[in-house]
């Protein structure tokens, strides 16, 4: 080791921590501060307030909210409402199915983009279009497309001879869910594509070289080189997609209004309805907190399945 490196090498002080390390720690906290301040200032109060709301029975008075502590009564009420469990069930299987499909399709498209020479910039631009549409507008567009009388989807299907009479897409329970999923997948697969695409670029080229020299074919290269390196990006894409899917609101709100009946009422819709339609703030907050707990649970399950793949700590 050179003299210089010796100077900077770690050695134990009486405090049990190297001065270099301590300096780094201070720098670390310093760099965290701006983000920390903004996040805490904006989100801490509202989130804590909402959590506190969930433990109270809330009456709106002329002086604002009037809190009456009632322990877990709100949660008891929420968990004994069949509607809540319908929403949980719908939100869970909706999220799992859409995220799985999106991860698969996203990977497919990202690999395709990487494997072609032209069309790269066109692809990126095209990818951004559904993603950058305002969700409510996208939902209106799909509502127009799915319309049972003058919608273009039925026109195309009938024209091609696939169906004889128009399908009532958003009016039947089964097709409503399919319609919703299709609209969601259309809009958010680009999200996955972009994350995976940039993740693909972080894979050093010589890994591929080495594999090819070893005589591996395309499939083997993918499975042994690409996929392991990509797990971090897949994990992130999957993680945040799960977050968004569990909180889905705009799409069912506009496309199906949560119907038919309550078939497509997501948890976020249920929360909004309880809060702002029925004006039951304590119950609504309990729904929201329960949603958060559920999402966190899903994330933790997902992360443990990808254990250690969301970037090892560099030490």
């Amino acid at each position, binding site marked *: 080791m050179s003299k210089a*490196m010796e100077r900077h090498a770690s050695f134990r002080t009486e405090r049990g921590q190297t001065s*270099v390390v301590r300096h*780094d*720690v201070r*720098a*670390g906290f310093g*760099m*965290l501060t*701006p983000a*920390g301040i*903004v*996040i805490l200032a*904006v*989100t801490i*109060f*509202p*989130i804590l307030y*909402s959590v506190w709301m969930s433990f109270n029975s809330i009456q709106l008075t002329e002086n604002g909210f009037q809190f009456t502590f009632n322990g877990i009564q709100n949660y008891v009420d929420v968990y004994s409402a069949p509607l809540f469990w319908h929403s949980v069930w719908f939100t869970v299987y909706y999220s799992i199915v859409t995220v799985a499909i999106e991860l698969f399709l996203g990977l497919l*498209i990202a690999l*395709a983009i*990487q*494997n072609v020479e032209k*069309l790269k*910039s066109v692809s*990126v*631009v095209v990818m*951004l*279009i*559904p993603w*950058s*549409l*305002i969700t409510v*507008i996208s939902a209106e*567009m799909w509502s*127009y*497309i799915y319309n049972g009388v003058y919608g*273009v989807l039925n*026109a195309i299907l009938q024209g091609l001879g696939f169906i004889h009479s128009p399908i009532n897409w958003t009016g039947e329970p089964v097709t409503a869910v399919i319609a919703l999923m299709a609209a969601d997948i*259309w809009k958010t697969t*680009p999200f996955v594509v*972009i994350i995976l695409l*940039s993740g693909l*670029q*972080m*894979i*050093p080229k*010589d*890994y591929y070289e080495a594999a090819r020299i070893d005589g591996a074919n*395309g499939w083997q290269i993918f499975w042994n080189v690409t996929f392991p390196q990509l797990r*971090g990006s897949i994990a992130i894409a999957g993680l*945040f997609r799960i*977050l968004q899917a569990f909180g889905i609101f705009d799409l069912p709100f506009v496309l199906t209004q949560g119907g038919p009946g309550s078939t497509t009422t997501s948890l976020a819709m249920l929360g909004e309805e309880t*809060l702002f339609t029925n004006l039951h703030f304590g119950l609504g*907050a309990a729904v*929201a907190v329960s949603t*958060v707990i559920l999402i*966190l649970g899903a994330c933790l399950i997902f992360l443990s399945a990808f254990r250690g793949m969301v*970037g*090892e700590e*560099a030490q």
Partner: protein
Amino acid sequence: MRKPLYQRVIGYVVLIFFLVVILLPFYWMFVTSFEPNSDISAYPPAYFPHHWTLSHYEEAFGQFHFGRYILNSVIVSITSTFFVLLFGSMAGFAIARLPIKAKQPMLIFLLIISVFPPLVVITPLYMLLRDVGWLDSYQALIIPYTAFNLPFAIWILRNYFLQVPGALFEAAKIDGASVFMSYWRIFLPLTTPGLFTAAVFTFVACWTEFFMALVFNPDNTMRTIPVGIALFSGQYTVPYGTIFAGSVVSIVPIVILVVIFRRWIVSGLTQGAVKG
């Protein structure tokens, strides 16, 4: 080194198929925005408009103050994205490479924040903003947007910082670079894919956010695009033509930005940032 032929062919086939599928609904929205109202709910629909009209665009800009909404959205989105990138990359770097404690809890905490349904926090946030006197202003949106988009940016950028070889960090330290300098000079340039990814997502998230923009900025001169488009609808009318016109217009700035910066974005996303 060129990829084998079969890989390229499959690649093109798959890609073109999906590009078409993705573009089709948008094509439909695009042409509908130029159709007169009487044709919009006609059945069977015209796959290519028989009559063209600019009336919906005129309505969006003339009757509604769409130009102003665009300006507001641009200011809010660009500013928020800037701060998210700046603060987020710093925080992501710190979590990735610096020996601070409590990393896992911090990451989980960030998750919690991005998970919390925004609708629930709207009323307390409203009270907060009202007490500070910041309603009907740009900061009323910029600050919450920054806060709610930071978690995702931090997660993404942390992932990128982790993939830069640690030897670079050591080398920089030996050369006497301060932590901030090594972040600024060395790491940041190496994670351009991450920066562009985070930038794109943050910008789009701010551009398309509806509810906070509705509640915090009620004054008509401070409305943003999503709220503006929502105001096109009457109680019983859904003016598809005008809504789609507004929507097409709202995508144009994004497309322009992407086209202008396409070299950087594409190379950021499709060229390896770290050569072997």
